[in-house]
Every structure is written in C-alpha cells, then in structure tokens.
C-alpha cells in the first residue's frame, strides 16, 4: 500500500521529504521526528517518523492535521573506502547477483545499503584483504525466485570473462531460494572449468550482527585460495553453530529448510570439504577432478522443460496436455520413481509424441529403480528414462542443458544417464 492522496498532498504542501525533521499537530497531540520512507504494510493515511530516541512510530494524518518542516535533511557524504591490492595475493572475482553478502546500515533512516563495490565489500569484511584481492562487480540484483535461464547464461558468461581476465576463482553471492538450480546450471554450462566457482548465500540478512553471510564469504575465499579445487560449488553453514561451513557439489545440493543457516544439504553424496572457521579446511572426498581442457561456455538451454511432482489424484488428462507442450519433462515420482497407472499410460503417449520424460524421486534421497516393481517396468516400456540418484531440480536443469546440446532423443537419454558433473553416482554409502 502506498500513501493515500490526502497524505501525499499534506506532505507536498509542507514541502516535506524523507529525512526532513517534521512537526505534526493532530488535534491535541503533537509529534516531532524525521520522516521515514513509507512502510509497505502501513495504513495509507499513516506516515512513519523516527523520534529522537531512535524509535519509529506511525502517525495517522487526518483532515485537521498540520504538518510542518522544522529542519531539512542534511546530506551526508558517504566516505570513500579505497582499498589497495596486494601483489602477493591471488585475486577472486566477486560477481553479485542479488544476495546481499555485506551491507551497511544507516541508523538515521533505517535503510540497509548493500555493499556492492569491491571497496565497500572489503570495508565491510576486512578479513578478506588478508586472504585475497577482490575484484567486485554487480551483474544484476534480483530475488533468486525471479531468476530464469537467461540469468544463468549471463552468470556463466561473466564467470568466463573474469577467469579469462586473470581471476583465480569466482565467488557468486546469490539468493538462497534457487541457488541450487543456478549452481547446477553453471556446473553443466562451464565445460572444462579448472578453477573454483563458489556460490554463497546468507539465511540471515547481512545487516544483522548474527548474519551468516560474513563467515560464509570468508570461508568461500579461503576454500578458493587454499584448495583451488576446480568445479562449481555451494558453500553454506554446516550446522546451527558458527563453527563450520561445508562446500557442496553444485549438482548435489538442495535447500532443505526454509530458514535455518544449515538449510543446504548434499543429497546422495557427501560435501567436498569442511571449512573450520577457526581452523583448517578438511577435504571430505577423494575424487580426483578430471584434467581440464579449456573453459568453454556451453550456454544453449532448452526453455520448454518442466518439473512435475506426481501426487495421487493428479489430473492425468490436464497434465498430459501440459507435458505435450514441452520438449522435456522431469517427473519427481513417488518412492522408487513411480506414478499411477493412468499416468504411466499418459507418459507413454508423451514420449511417443517426442517429449523426453525423465524419472527422479520426490523422496530426494536414494536412487530410483524402475526394475523392482511392475509400475517401474511399465514406465521403462513407456520410454521413461530413470536417472539414478539425481535430484529432481538438478535433472530439470540438466535436461534443459542436454536438450540444448542435442535434439536426438536417444543421445539425450544417454547424456542424461551419464555422470557428467558428479550429478549421478553408482554408490550410496551407509552413513546416512
């Protein structure tokens, strides 16, 4: 909700702007404070002022209210925070996409300003300057739920550019909601990657003293510099404590909690490393990365791919129509990768019509197996392609990418079942 017309007129007549000190007389009551931005959820007739004590209050204006400006706002210059670069240190490129990894709070207005430039960032996280040089740029700044494949492509191209220009690693601050999708997309698109590309996020906004963003950013920088491990990764807190972060393979990571710091988990695999904030980096897997050729960005993606979760009572006819409009469909089936009998039949028709259908499990953990039950065998006969223990979201992104690399359905099926970026494995260990 925005201001009502009547409030807008009152403010205009008084010549009142945000940051001005106002006096408001409303009946027998008078208030004095600094005009704050209108709050989204405020009543349209309410203006918010900051009192001398620092508290904000909402004051409802009415016909008889008088608003006058006592003092115009003072323009305060933001201090320059020039940073020097150190020739002995490697350089990490930080490509901002929207997650605010560091910010400054203006207590006068309550505004939280993101630290966007390298100077601002290092000013907010001085620890970085003893680990590496920072080259920061803002690619775009959007909520991650609004990201689409165009964004993934833009990020991939920016990564190539930075690495070509001499960066030793890339860190990508990213909103946590769809960070797993982006990390999967980058994993596939960045073919021949021989440097670390680490996505980091924060579950607690960086304006607050408890924010996980700072420890995550510093840990990401350390991981890049100390291990130089090639690949695309997601780094977030390992537990609720500020003791360790874990580095997840970009194709194996999923946000498993709406709000906890340790929301991100590796599914059907183990994280590749653990960073002790006050100590060493532990490597957690002994996979030797493939020798890299040179980095090529394979950025053609098929947009018309969808992910559908199967559930009882799903309207088979309706969804069949939807599926026929796509070039590829990933199903998150139940259990070992099952759907209802009518849906099996529908999937068979969809495959016949030329749409690739991939089977994953909504259980997330564990592998699909269409050999065990009749339903599974029927799905195989219908032409549905099971993809082992790949995450549904990763399968979605991979299918988009695969269908951008080939239009041959047989080849697409082969590529989907081949382990290209650690997204499928043949073994699931017992430690749970």
């Amino acid at each position, binding site marked *: 909700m925005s201001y009502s017309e009547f409030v807008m007129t009152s403010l205009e007549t008084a010549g009142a702007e945000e940051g001005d000190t106002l006096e408001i007389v409303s009946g027998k009551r008078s208030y004095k404070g600094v005009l704050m931005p209108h709050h989204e959820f405020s*009543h349209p007739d309410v203006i*918010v002022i900051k009192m001398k004590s620092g*508290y904000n209050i909402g004051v409802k204006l009415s016909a008889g209210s008088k608003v006058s400006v006592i003092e115009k706002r003072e323009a305060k210059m933001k201090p320059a925070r020039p940073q020097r670069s150190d020739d002995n240190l490697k350089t990490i490129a930080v490509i901002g996409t929207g997650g605010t990894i560091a910010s*400054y709070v203006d*207590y006068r207005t309550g505004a939280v300003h993101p630290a966007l430039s390298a100077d601002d960032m290092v*000013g907010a996280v001085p620890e970085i300057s003893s680990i590496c040089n920072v080259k920061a740029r803002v690619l775009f700044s959007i909520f991650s739920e609004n990201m689409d494949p165009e964004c993934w492509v833009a990020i991939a191209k920016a990564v190539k550019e930075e690495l070509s220009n001499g960066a030793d690693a890339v860190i990508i601050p990213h909103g946590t909601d769809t960070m797993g999708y982006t990390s999967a997309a980058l994993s596939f698109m960045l073919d021949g990657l021989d440097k670390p590309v680490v996505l980091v996020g924060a579950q*607690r906004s960086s304006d*607050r003293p408890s*924010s996980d963003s700072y420890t995550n950013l510093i840990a990401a920088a350390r991981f890049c510099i100390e291990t130089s491990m090639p690949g695309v990764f997601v780094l977030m807190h390992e537990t609720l404590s500020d003791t360790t972060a874990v580095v997840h393979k970009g194709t194996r990571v999923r946000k498993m909690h709406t709000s906890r710091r340790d929301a991100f988990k590796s599914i059907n695999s183990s994280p590749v490393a653990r960073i002790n904030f006050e100590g060493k980096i532990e490597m957690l897997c002994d996979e030797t990365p493939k020798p890299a050729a040179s980095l090529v960005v394979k950025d053609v993606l098929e947009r018309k791919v969808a992910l559908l979760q199967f559930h009882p009572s799903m309207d088979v006819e309706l969804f069949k129509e939807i599926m026929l409009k796509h070039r590829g469909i990933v199903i998150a089936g139940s259990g070992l990768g099952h759907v209802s009998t009518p849906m099996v039949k529908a999937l068979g028709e969809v495959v016949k019509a030329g749409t690739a259908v991939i089977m994953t499990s909504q259980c997330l953990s564990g592998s699909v197996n269409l050999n065990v039950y009749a339903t599974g065998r029927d799905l195989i006969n219908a032409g549905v392609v099971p993809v082992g223990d790949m995450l549904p979201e990763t399968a979605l992104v991979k299918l988009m990418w695969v269908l951008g690399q080939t239009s041959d359905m047989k080849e697409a099926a082969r590529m989907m079942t081949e382990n290209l970026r650690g997204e499928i494995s043949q073994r699931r260990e017992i430690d749970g």
Partner: protein
Amino acid sequence: MAERVTCGIEIHQQLNTNKLFCSCPCDLIEEEGATILRKLRPSQSELGEIDRAVLAQAARKMSFRYQSPRSRCCLVEADEEPPHDANVNAMQATLIVSEMMGCRAVDEVHFMRKIVIDGSNTGGFQRTALVAIDGDIEINGKKIAIQTVCLEEDAARKVETKGSEITYRLDRLGIPLIEVATGPDMHDPEEVREVAVRIGSILRATKMVKRGLGTIREDLNVSIPGGARVEIKGAQDLKLLPTYVEREIERQSGLLKIRDELVARGVTKVEPDIIDCSDVLKGCRSKVISSALSKGGKVFGVALAGFEGLMKSPDSKLRLGSEMAQYAKTKGVAGIFHTDELPGYGITQEEVDALRDKLGLAPGKAFAICADERTKASSALKMAADRAYSALNGVPEETRDPLPDGGSAYSRPLPGAGRMYPETDVRPITIGVERLEAIRSSLPELPDAKAARFVKAYGIHEQQARQIVKEGYEDLFEDLAERYGMAAIAARTFLNTLPELEKEGVDTSKIGDDEIVEAFASLSKGEFAKEALPAVLKELAKGSNVKKAVSSLGIGSMDQGDAANIIDAIIEERADFVREKGEGAVGPLMGVAMQELRGKVDGKKAADLLRERVQAFLRG
C-alpha cells in the same frame, strides 16, 4: 535551589502470555538442552559510525554458547526462523497499562531492531517498539511523568562466563517485557521506591504479568547537581532502591570532591606511561603478584602523581581507586593495587619505594600496578589510568551494575541513541480508536479505588487499605479475604507480622504467595491458632511447608479437654495467687497459659477457658 538528586526509573516487567514473537511458553527451566555456538559481528553503519557502546562490547571479542531447552525455545529464539506476528495479548496488556497511566498510544506501532552484541540476543539485536507516550502518575500529590511505554523482548539469561566464552540459556529470550520509563521527576530516594511500587501495582492489575524473583527489573538513572547521568541497570530488589540512590549520591559527591582536589593540586591530563615493573617485584610475597609472574605474566606500573589520598582516603569517603579497579576488571584482570593501600597485600614498603624509583616518582607520590598475563595487565592498567585522569572532568556518564549491598560497579559506557532500525520481518500494528475505547471502558481498578473498596468490603482501616495497596499486597490480600474471610488477620500479617519477622532477620521473600494461601487455608480449618501464624511463616521462610511447620512446632490444635487440663494444672500451681486475686488472676495468668498452650488454642478461646476454669476453681 537545586535539588539534591534527580532520578528517573525504567521498569521492565515480564508478561506470562506466550513469548512476544513465537508460541513458546514464558517459563524458565533448569534444563540445558542442545548447545549452539555463535559469534556476533558489529554491523557497519553507512557513515562508518558505530555506537560507542557497541564498539566497547565488540572489543571484548566474545564467543557465545546458547543452551536451548526444547520446550522453552524454538527456531525463532535460535535466530533460525523469522519472528511471528507480535503477541496480541502482550500488546493488549501494554495498551491497558498505557491507558491506566494516562498515556496516549501511537497510531501505528513499529517494531525496531536495537543493536545489542553482548550475546544476550541471538540475532545481535533486541526487538522493541514504542507503544505510548506522555502520561503521568500521582504519588503523594505530586505528578511523576511517564514518558514512554514500550513493548520488547527479554534477553537470554547468562548462565556462566568462562574465559572469553559466555554461556546463555534461551528460555528467557523472547519473553515479553513492558517497559515503563518515567521522567527525571524524582528528587528523593524514598520517592523512587514509591513510584516503583505504584508502577508495579498498575502492571499487576493487568493480570498478565509474571510473578516471582527476577520478573520485574528496574533501571535507575541518577544524577546530582554538577554530576552526570549514571544508569544503574537491572536492580531487582525494590527495598534496595533508596539505598542505590543514596550510595550513588555519595559516590558522585565523592567524585566531585576528587575533581576539585585534583584541580587544586594542579594535576593535568597526561598520556599514561605503562611501565614493566616485573623485575622490581621478583621476590614479592603477594600471592597475586607471584602467581602472575610464575605463569609468565608481567607486572605493569603507572605513575599517578597528584592522586595521593584520593584513590582511597583515610576516611574511605573518596574512592577513586575502586572506580579505577572496576574499569581495569573489564579487561579480565582480578584487580589493581594502588599506593593508598600499600604497603599491604604482601607488598612491602621497600618494594613500594623501589617501584617509585622505577616509575621516576618522588617519595610519597601515587602510582598503581597490575599483575596478570602481559596484554591483559597492560591494557587493564591503561584503563585504570585513563579512568583516574577522567576524574578531572568530574563524574563520567556510565552504566553500572547493582550490587547486593546497595552499591554499584562500573559495567560499560552509557549507550548512545543511534542504533535502532526497523524490524522489517514484523508487520506494523494499527492501534485503532475503537480498541482504545474498549480498553478505556473496562480498565482494571486503579489503586485508590481498590483501597476504598477494601475498606468497604472487608472492614479494614483506610490506613491499612492504602498501605496494603502501596506495598503491593492487594491481590494476595483480596484472595485471602474472599476465600477465608480473614481480612483483619491478613492485613495484620502483611503490614505487621512480615516486617517484624524481617527485623528478626527472617528472609520473608522466601515465602511464596501460594504458601501464604496454604497457611491461611490451614488456619481457617482450625489446624492451628492465629497466634501461631508468625511462627508458621518463620518456618516457611526457612524452606519448610505448612504441614511440616505445624507438626514440628507442635502447635496442631488441641481439644478442649486437653486445654482444660493444662489450664487446671497452671491454676493448681498458683493456687494461692488465684485464691488471693480471684478473677483478677485471669489477666496475669494469660501469658503463662498462652505459653503452655503453645499457640494451639486461639487467644480468645484460651482467655474464655482460663476464666471459666478459674471460676470453677474458685467455686471449689
């Protein structure tokens, strides 16, 4: 003429609704639960300005352990989930209190984040909102301004400090607090207590407050003319409030005298020179010194010429030394030594002279030393020396902790105002006119009206009624009067018996309200005589319960027959006296009779029985 002292208070009262921003219950628990480890980081302000209190806290570089008992805290307290909408009942209680004090509520309540990084809030901030402003209460015919009423969340409670790690428990975090802040309108220590009691009874009138130790805390602001505003934060004992004020007046007056003396002596501020004096004290027999040195630590010294007799004056009235020591302790050392207390503590006169030499001081000139691990000792001594020189400016503004003896100790610098910004996860709350009118038309009874009603309903004196309300016993009194019809006994118990027991040294605060109700229940059943009530209360204060007290005191009521036998025996023993005095013997014998009957018989009954038996005896 300037007032002797100017005081304001802020009262924080816990509510027993659910927590302010989640659905956890508001009770503390003796259970640790899982531990979460965290560090907090000071937020950067846009303009590079960080609040000085925030900076001071950050400098102590603390790690925090949070105990999270599962039934008393949830992901919200752990800073792992956004806050829920503000508790409606808590807001209602706040509005009721505001209306009772004539304050006006704001049109829209906005919760703010107030930065706190001592670890007591997991997010690094406290959620707090201003709800109402500009009211007043009347005490002894004088208007005391109520400047603000706020609703905020209580902090986690400190469980222990080990080195650089503090452990908190999350059970208390999030309990709603109503904060009432008065204007600086009190100019007398006793007045401060009365105002606190009155505000307490207004808060209790909402029936939504928690009762018991620690559920209500007072912050005192005290300044004397020429002094400075000092905040004594977190006092819990109402009875001690006047003492805190008196002692602070003394402390500030002393500091002003110290300043005047320093100026008269021509002392000026110099940059303190912290010098390593470890070699001078190599063989020192002070445990503190020798222990620090043997562990590889150092003894540092600083010259403080001009401060002689001011760190601890012979009459102990001037005590700059204890202020210096309190500042030093913030760096983690146990304390300092200064020349007003030396030789002593195992440090000899020869060593004192040698130290003076080392520090380049003329004979008799003052200095201070500190022994500990090198960085701690030198930074602590610098704090002490800086504090000494700031005495030239009189009284520093600061926040102090209340001590059980009525004194206080330095805690941290007074916080500035500029560290709040909006809590954007919580929606603003509209306070509509209709809601306020509904509250106004059904306000709980104000103290005066309550006192008048007690007189009418229970037949006690007006003086007693006022005193009961004034001392905060109104709810308990009414409960007892209604349930057992024992208004007079209840009144006497609160106004006379309890204070008398206190004078005897009994800690009556240990008697819970429900135990008092139990005692009266037992009394009303005739399980003991009312004269024995003080003895029963005394036992309850020691930790006993009513049943045990009655039996251990041997005061269970006696049947008529036994009582008559005891009285007959008394009469027999004094047969001559009784024959001589006739019925007039009853009076003198009452004392003995009551003693023998040991409170098992009601006084009036005993008197009647004694009279009857005396009459029977006289008849032959």
